[in-house]
């Protein structure tokens, strides 16, 4: 992507995030049962959705594209997407933890969705570790692509196994996960605006990282 395009994307991201903040704190009403704590949702849910689906989805497709075409652009996209996805999943876990303390009474519980996201996060870390430990760029790209295909393929398996694991042992009675409290329209709007802002943020970070990776190669060449 051209430098000016990235810059425009960056400013759009800033605008969208600001709009999301205004909507999340100003327009959306205080949630009835949870109070202001519920506003963490506007950070938690968008980062989870974008990190999990967009981040790992792009990693998966770009990895396949790399193995088929051996295009370095596809590899840079895969790597950048994995890096941003790991950051977003870290935000998801930390914000979820902060949200869980006042609502569930605990920082951490082995709830199905929490565990799934955490395993995804660990797989993302493993991908970054693998890339970091191999000096040869071409080999790192090739091995990374294999893991970049396997890890997203594993997501449905992780999802079902963790879900059954939890529900068989301890059906969710008090600790009901997730945003079950979406009631008002303003709350929904705030969530959608923040979701759009996070998609932009993801695109901006990935574009910047891809450009940086390309410049690194050019500088060393």
């Amino acid at each position, binding site marked *: 992507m051209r430098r000016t395009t990235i810059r425009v994307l960056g400013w759009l991201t800033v605008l969208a995030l600001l709009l999301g903040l205004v909507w999340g704190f100003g327009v959306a009403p205080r949630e009835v049962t949870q109070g202001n704590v519920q506003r963490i949702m506007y950070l938690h849910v968008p980062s989870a959705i974008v990190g999990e689906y967009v981040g790992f989805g792009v990693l998966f497709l770009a990895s396949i594209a790399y*193995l088929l075409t051996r295009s370095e652009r596809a590899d840079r996209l895969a790597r950048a997407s994995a890096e941003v996805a790991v950051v977003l999943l870290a935000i998801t876990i930390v914000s979820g933890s902060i949200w869980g303390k006042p609502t569930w009474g605990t920082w951490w519980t082995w709830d199905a969705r929490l565990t799934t996201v955490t*395993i995804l996060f*660990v*797989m993302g870390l*493993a991908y970054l*570790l*693998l890339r970091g*430990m*191999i000096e040869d760029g071409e*080999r790192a790209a*090739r*091995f990374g*692509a*294999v*893991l970049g*295909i*396997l*890890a997203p*393929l*594993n997501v449905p*398996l*992780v999802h*079902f*196994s*963790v879900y*059954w*694991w939890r529900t*068989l042992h301890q059906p969710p009675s008090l600790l009901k996960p997730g945003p079950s409290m979406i009631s008002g329209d303003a709350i929904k709007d705030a969530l959608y605006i923040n979701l759009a802002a996070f998609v932009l943020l993801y695109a901006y970070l990935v574009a910047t990282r891809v450009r940086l990776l390309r410049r690194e190669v050019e500088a060393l060449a």
Partner: protein
Amino acid sequence: MSFGRRAYVVLWKDVLIECRSKEALNALVFFSLLLLFLFQFALGGDRDHLTAALPGLLWLGFILAGLLALGRSFLIERENDCWEGLLLAPGDKSAIYLGKLAGNLLLMFAVEALVLLLFVVFFNVDVAGVLPALVAVIGLGTVGLAALGTLFAGMTAHVRARELLFPVLVLPLQVPLLLGTVRATEAVLSREGLAAVGHWLALLGAADVIFLVAGFLTFEFILEG
């Protein structure tokens, strides 16, 4: 040479080397024995305590032994230019994956049989009447684990921090296998029957298929070195 024949040659070579050197098997037998000691010491002598944790312990034992067994499966190819030999072998490279996988499976099954025997003797696990079901569960879990392990062993054979990276890659990806096999083993040992965990067996089967297919399709990219 046909696909099956080429896979068989790789398997035969690995089995022959192992039969002559007994390098992996000897170490793994000793390691399994040590694991058993560790479990016993770490958890104390309380019977009820142990019984509840047995399926998990059994699979922890399998996985730890498996990490050792699988992680070294490509190291032997690095000597005497064997890797180049594999690369130069004509035809589809997935035959080499299949051969390596089969060799790893044989080794894993041998070690698992021993670990299971040790559990029966030392922890009083009662397997009478449920052995076929238990073998089926162990088989389903081991195929998936070996499929992942063989692929990543090929990948990490060239990496400096191999011993570190191999478990870091295998462990997160095998989580569904571990959850499924532990639950199914629990059902078998508590005489619930396999019907109660049919969905888990389906998940294990699906995981085996996914890992095997992914291994077959991507192995040629790993063999490039």
